[in-house]
């Protein structure tokens, strides 16, 4: 019997070496890059103001507003979960800092720190409840979404008597905080909002963590096959709770940006619907909705597509009413391109 077995050391000659091109095309973010290039060229032709270098800063700013949150949302999706409360959590963070600092007349930074604690706690709660109950993240975070949405409005009205938080623009610590979260840099004629720089930094760090560290390996593993990951000793619960807390951290940061860019006022109803924009950015960027595959850079490209389409419609002089329909179409196209490119690369 043993003699009839083909020696396994003989290399399997059915597998030909893959070309560099095919390997490049198998990267998760490649589809979104192609999509982004197509959209860029399209608007360069269709919308003359799009070609103006001065508008580049504005486009990047729109992208960064989505992109900052797309970073943890992409990581979470690669880890096999998603978070519907991510949009309103941003508002919760801004409101917490603003209302607390104003009501207790303390330094703005005390409110900022409290908002950080609250945001991390919301993330930890999401993750803990998910791991504890084993329910799908859709249900758990849908619950948190409504809880936060309700609390945002109710607590704001209770403390400030209005639907927005009181302005904290004349309080101690406001200037330094605004400088960190919402200042601008002028480079020639281009105005670069500081959140763009933060966004690039966050993407770089998160991409590095995902691809080059043990934690990153574990994120792929818990999303790809949680049971398999657990069996080889990966602390699945800790990784997933950590990912939800990362969403909390970035929601805190985005909330601070929101608070300080609007001169210390946050509208309590803001943020509803944003969670889908973050998820869309991640999916367009090549993250698999079922987990285990994706890229942080792809999520950033997804956010860039969002920013380009949103402003491209305006620059082209079209009625902004068309934006969402146009956006949806663009996103579908980008996703299909993504899928086609991926399938073709895998078939090689």
């Amino acid at each position, binding site marked *: *019997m*043993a003699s*009839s*077995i*083909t*020696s*396994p*050391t*003989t*290399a*399997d000659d059915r*597998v030909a*070496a*893959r070309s560099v091109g095919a*390997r490049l095309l198998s990267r998760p973010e490649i589809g979104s890059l192609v999509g982004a290039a197509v959209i860029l060229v399209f608007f360069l032709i269709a919308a003359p103001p799009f070609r103006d270098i001065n508008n580049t800063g504005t486009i990047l700013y729109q992208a960064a507003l989505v992109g900052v949150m797309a970073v943890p949302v992409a990581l979470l999706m690669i880890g096999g979960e998603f978070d519907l409360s991510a949009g309103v959590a941003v508002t919760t963070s801004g409101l917490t800092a603003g209302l607390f600092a104003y009501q207790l007349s303390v330094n703005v930074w005390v409110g900022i720190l409290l908002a950080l604690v609250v945001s991390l706690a919301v993330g930890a709660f999401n993750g803990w409840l998910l791991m504890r109950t084993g329910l799908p993240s859709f249900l758990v975070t849908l619950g948190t979404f409504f809880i936060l949405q309700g609390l945002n409005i109710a607590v704001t009205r209770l403390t400030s008597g209005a639907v927005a938080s009181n302005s904290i623009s004349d309080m101690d610590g406001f200037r330094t905080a605004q400088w960190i979260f919402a200042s601008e840099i002028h480079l020639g004629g281009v105005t670069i909002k500081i959140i763009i720089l933060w966004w690039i930094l966050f993407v770089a760090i998160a991409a590095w963590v995902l691809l*080059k*560290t*043990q934690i*990153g*390996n*574990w994120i*792929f*593993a818990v999303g*790809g*096959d949680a*049971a*398999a*990951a*657990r*069996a*080889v*000793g*990966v602390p699945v619960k800790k990784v997933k709770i950590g990912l939800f807390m990362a969403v909390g951290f970035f929601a805190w940061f985005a909330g601070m940006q929101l608070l300080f860019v609007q001169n210390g006022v946050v509208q309590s109803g803001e943020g509803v619907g944003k969670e889908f924009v973050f998820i869309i950015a991640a999916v367009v960027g090549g993250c*698999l909705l079922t987990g*285990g*595959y994706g890229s942080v850079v792809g999520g950033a490209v997804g956010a860039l597509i969002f920013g380009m389409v949103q402003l491209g419609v305006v620059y082209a002089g079209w009625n902004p009413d068309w934006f969402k329909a146009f956006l949806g179409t663009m996103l579908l196209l980008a996703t299909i391109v993504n899928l086609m490119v991926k399938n073709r690369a895998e078939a090689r």
Partner: protein
Amino acid sequence: MTTTESFASEAANSPTTPIVHLEDVGKSYGNVHALRGVSLSVRQGEITCVLGDNGAGKSTLIKIIAGLHDYTTGTMSVNGEERHFSSPRESLDSGIATVYQDLALAPLMSVWRNFFLGNELTKGPLGRLDERAMKRIAQQELTKMGISIPNLEQPVGKLSGGQKQCVAIARAIHFGAKVLILDEPTAALGVNQSGVVLKYVVKARDAGIGVIFITHNPHHAYLVGNHFVVLKLGRVALDTHRADITLEQLTTEMAGGSELEALTHELRDLAPDAVQKPKQDVVQEKEQ
């Protein structure tokens, strides 16, 4: 990290030390007794085959040893010490590695990332993955086992069933397993690939590892096994050494023995012409 060589020498010193010993172990899920009074010894350099039909309790047994479930009655000792595992990590830290039927490999991750999953090598203060070393070691270990995977960057999901099995086994051996639990390693494989996997099982045994080989194929079990335990409805129905049993006896025992005989008669009564006697009986009658 302990290498396989050192186990080989340990094994040479004490070839029959039981590493894992189960005494009267039982497991109940509520009012369902999945496992009752199971005793089992796993020795270094031996292959213990656990056979049984679907639902006989094989999975429950390995889950207890692998630390996925705790047992409810009896005792389990590892290296002479009574243990209750509360997580797979504890089982792994005691030198017990399990290669599951679903292989515990993340399909979309590359071969080398899977190989080192949970045991990643890092360097530098920031804990950067030492990719070069991991790829090199993974390639070495796989070559040592005689597996050729040209591109370690390709996702594990694209490997063949036999290759996946071998990656999982090579991984367990590399990370210093003293006991290797193989859950139906040949169940989904063709004849050639089964042969390849069985050869690795033997290699693992020769390296001084105690192997628990779970299967419902008596032919595969008899090719490599030193010791056979047949489970039936959560109890041990047979516990014997290779010297005391033939393949035919083992097959009969596995197939249900007397129960199969009864079934044959029953079916013959239903359709006298359509049902033939099992081949084995025919042979025996000819001999008589």
